[in-house]
């Protein structure tokens, strides 16, 4: 198997809280090849954003490894980190709060360049040229350069966010709910742009979202998380055609659709709500809400390769 561009090995992130240890991300493994997209799906509080930030070292991992081209970036020293910043970037959910309101669009897009080591800094003219090129690439009209974030609408701001991530020429981008705050018509524009950039630059994405419809569209592989645990991990088409974990099934079933033939479908509504995994009990964390839970669910949680490439922690959801 070819070497993955980005790989996580038994990655864990725990937070200390007054109530106990919060297991935000527990033993996560994934591999992302060059030019591919891993979709990470789950509801709020499932640890998907924490996972993205831990991969980029914005949070310090509790244990495990993150490999970029086979090298563990979690063990990098400060001086080696600029390699990480150049190659691994992030797009944030909220295009309103992730841009400093006091900086012009040009300054915002040029900002990542100012973090480069001194030897690689660009001259002012080179920087201007670079920013112009990136703006064009991301579909931002050049006259926006001297405007401020509050003068742009959500879609344009998210393009600025994307331009900022692209300016260093990364190979891997963590997209943390990049379209959730946008209207559907704008959402489609941004998704298409992300896919165009991926094709042109052979980018790899980790696409974090709560929206299964969006994730199916853009992802090659999908990982479903629930309260810090990965419950199912499979190539996109497999996950949608034959979901196995009861949670995945419930999630797929809950999405409202415009397909009127599905209007009266039998619903498996799951009861209760997600809680936070503080000092969690062993076993499957979905068990308290699961209609099929049995005594043994409370003992073990382990991903098993059910068919080639399709991993699931439980197969009770199969009809």
């Amino acid at each position: 198997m070819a070497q993955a561009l980005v790989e996580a090995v038994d990655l864990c992130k725990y937070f200390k809280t007054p109530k106990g240890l919060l297991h935000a991300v527990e033993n996560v493994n994934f591999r992302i090849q060059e030019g591919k997209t891993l979709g990470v799906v789950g509801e709020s509080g499932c640890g998907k954003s924490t996972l993205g930030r831990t991969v980029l070292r914005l949070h310090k991992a509790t244990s495990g490894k993150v490999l970029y081209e086979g090298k563990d970036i979690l063990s990098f020293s400060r001086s080696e980190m600029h390699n990480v910043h150049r190659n691994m970037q992030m797009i944030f959910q909220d295009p309103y709060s992730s841009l400093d309101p006091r900086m012009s669009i040009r300054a915002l897009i040029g900002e990542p360049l100012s973090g480069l080591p001194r030897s690689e800094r660009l001259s002012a003219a080179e920087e201007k040229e670079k920013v112009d090129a990136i703006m064009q690439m991301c579909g931002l009209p050049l006259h926006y350069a001297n405007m401020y974030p509050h003068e742009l609408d959500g879609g344009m701001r998210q393009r600025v966010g994307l331009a900022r991530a692209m300016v260093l020429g990364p190979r891997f981008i963590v997209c943390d709910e990049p379209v959730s705050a946008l209207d559907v018509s704008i959402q489609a524009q941004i998704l298409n742009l992300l896919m165009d950039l991926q094709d042109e630059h052979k980018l790899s994405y980790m696409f974090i979202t709560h929206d299964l419809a969006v994730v199916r569209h853009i992802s090659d592989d999908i990982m479903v998380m629930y309260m810090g645990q990965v419950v199912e991990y499979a190539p996109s088409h497999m996950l949608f055609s034959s979901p196995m974990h009861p949670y995945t099934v419930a999630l797929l079933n809950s999405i409202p659709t415009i397909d009127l033939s599905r209007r009266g479908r039998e619903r498996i509504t799951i009861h209760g709500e997600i809680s936070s995994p503080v000092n969690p009990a062993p076993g499957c964390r979905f068990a308290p809400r699961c209609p099929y839970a049995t005594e043994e669910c409370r003992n073990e949680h382990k991903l098993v390769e059910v068919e080639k490439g399709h991993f699931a922690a439980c197969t009770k959801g199969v009809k």
Partner: protein
Amino acid sequence: MSENLLEVKDLHVQYNTDDAVVYALNGVSLNLKEGEKLGLVGETGAGKTTLALSVLRLLPKVGQIASGSISYKGEELLDKPESYMLGLRGRRVSMIFQDPMTSLNPVKSVGDQIREVLDLHFPQLTKEAKNEKVDQMLQLVGIPASRKNEFPHQFSGGMKQRVVIAMALISQPELLLADEPTTALDVTIQAQIMALMGQLKDRFNTAVLLITHDLGLVAEFCDTVAVIYSGCIVESGTVEDIFSGKNNHPYTKGLIGCIPDLSKDEDRLHPIPGHMADARTLPSGCPFADRCANAMDKCRKERPEAFSEGTHTVFCHLFDNMRGGV
């Protein structure tokens, strides 16, 4: 056929801000029958919330109803004194807001907050009767009555929205205005809340105006749909009319095209180019003309007339010939 509960006719609403006049609603007409579930679909800034607030006459100070009429059970609301509106709001017409986190008072127990509605609109009830009603209502929305002395922060997001629904429905209103009631919630919770709203609606025969940006939600929950764009209704009809894919307004068609289809593998989505026009200038023609692939000269000059076919109405010049043919 049941009577129209709410009739909005040619409503124009504008916000007079310091810099400019923002035209939020430009001639919106809407009918809602008793017990009906109407979905009002549109994007940010289309005027969905403005419409709901106009019905309750709760527009912010800068907002002004320029012309039009809103009649509720045959009575013109725009001529009524404020005292009449006070008796209407929360008693006969209730509203649910998007964010359950901020629509509850953090320093009052949820039981007290629900009872407040009764104190206001049913002062004649005894304390015991009120408490009993609160307990019943909490149970109806799926919260054990024993939790009524707890405070909002002790509830999760979905539970808070249940409390808000309990508050809205305890006076058994005839009309519920639900403004993006599930947008802040996760999908599995959204499914629970929508199921709950459906059950309660059937139980009390409340009419629902569901305001949302989510076409899927409307397709699953509502009987009729109105699509709003830039302060104008561009298309309305039953769920079947809209989602069968025949004779849709180009905007509706575009919206449907933007949604990634779960059952199909597609390479690229079909976004609507451009973005919504600035609401500070009143469009002379069709508000969607600038983004529309089928736009003709006429579209930029004349407001399209309604083209109706049974329950289905479209405001688009593309259907002008068809109208002539009948």
